[in-house]
């Protein structure tokens, strides 16, 4: 399907639409209003429609419909199972038959749990523990100590930060004589130190998010200025 516009005209259209939507969203600065809400609802509708179409083009069409039409007999036979699962999931729309979808949901949850376990172990837990242990350099002689003193201090700080943060999330407590439930004294002190590292980490995350938001704001403003410069 060809369009009666050239690429520059399309870019101008998308730029103008972007400008209008940007101004509608920025109107939130003066308070929640009609324009902001319309922009949000249009965004939600367009995004949901786009996601559904991407699911069709990138997953269902190439992996289900195309093999069903032009695949081998074995391919077609193997697709009976996901087809049954998809039908079960579609039953969720009908309240009376929604219980049937549990089988397909159990399949998805089982596969998802396995992927999550493997991902958490191989992608996060093992690399993070390795990284923490390797943060302290190996030193065999006093000369190594003098040479790598800064690295040693940093490594110890990282190790302490990791350990104290984990201790902060230890919620094993005992009932005291006065009836209150508290953690052990030593754990309480270490957890308080852990709060320092958690505060620092969240502060860095906040600064990162704030920088990204500021970059997005600058990008929007510069795109508006550029659009006015490109209009013939």
């Amino acid at each position: 399907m060809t369009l009666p516009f050239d690429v520059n005209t399309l870019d101008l259209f998308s730029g103008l639409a972007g400008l209008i939507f940007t101004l509608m969203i920025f109107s939130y600065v003066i308070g929640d209003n009609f324009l902001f809400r319309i922009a949000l609802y249009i965004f939600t509708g367009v995004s949901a429609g786009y996601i559904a179409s991407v699911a069709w083009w990138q997953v269902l069409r190439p992996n289900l419909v195309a093999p069903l039409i032009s695949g081998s007999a074995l391919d077609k036979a193997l697709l009976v199972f996901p087809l049954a699962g998809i039908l079960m999931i579609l039953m969720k729309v009908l309240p009376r038959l929604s219980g049937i979808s549990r089988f397909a949901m159990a399949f998805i949850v089982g596969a998802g749990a396995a992927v999550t376990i493997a991902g958490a172990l191989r992608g996060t837990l093992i690399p993070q523990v390795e990284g923490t242990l390797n943060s302290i350099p190996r030193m065999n002689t006093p000369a190594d100590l003098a040479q790598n003193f800064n690295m040693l201090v940093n490594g110890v700080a990282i190790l302490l930060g990791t350990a104290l943060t984990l201790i902060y999330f230890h919620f094993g407590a005992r009932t005291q004589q006065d009836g209150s439930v508290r953690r052990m004294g030593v754990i309480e002190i270490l957890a308080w130190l852990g709060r320092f590292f958690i505060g620092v980490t969240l502060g860095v995350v906040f600064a990162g998010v704030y920088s990204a938001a500021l970059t997005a704001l600058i990008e929007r403003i510069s795109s508006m200025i550029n659009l006015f410069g490109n209009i013939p």
Partner: protein
Amino acid sequence: MRVLTAIIAIAVGVLVLLGYFFPALPYVQDIQALLLNWAMLMIAAAAIVGVLNLVFVHADKIRRREKGNLYSAILIIFLFGTFLLGLILPPGHEIMRLILNGVIFPVEAALMGILTITLLYAAVRLLRRRADFTTIVFLVTAALVLFGSATLPFGENIPVFSGLATWIREVLAAGGARGILIGVSLGTLLTGLRVLFGIDRPYGGN
């Protein structure tokens, strides 16, 4: 039904896990790929059901003439418009790119831009409402890192802040972040194992 759903979840989970941890066993990786492909197809169908649910919820709002039903009508019109166009045209087509570049990206970026004001406001409110040790550490760190990454008019970083911000990011925050990440991954691992042992059944049938 309860037992059967649990058996399906556990069997699928164990077979997929075998593919990750014992790839040398015969057929294990083929079975894993097949099961993950089936799961992906079902997840895509579930995404479409989720979109349908959004339509039903807003159609119900319009039918009941609830407050804000005009917004719901706008949402449904744009959703169907985009979906029907998306069924005919592939995601790389100019019109689909126009939708992406003219609506989705600008709104996402503008919402992100609005965050600069809301985050600043939230930080001030936090200091007013709960000025304790963690809050002060949090805000001082955020300010130091922001000053450290800011550039002077001639393109240079602020001298002392720059080095301090780098040290905070690469040492202190790295330690805290590692602790949080290890905690999160332990929690994720436990949640996954609870599903595989049939203790948690989020698919229903408890």
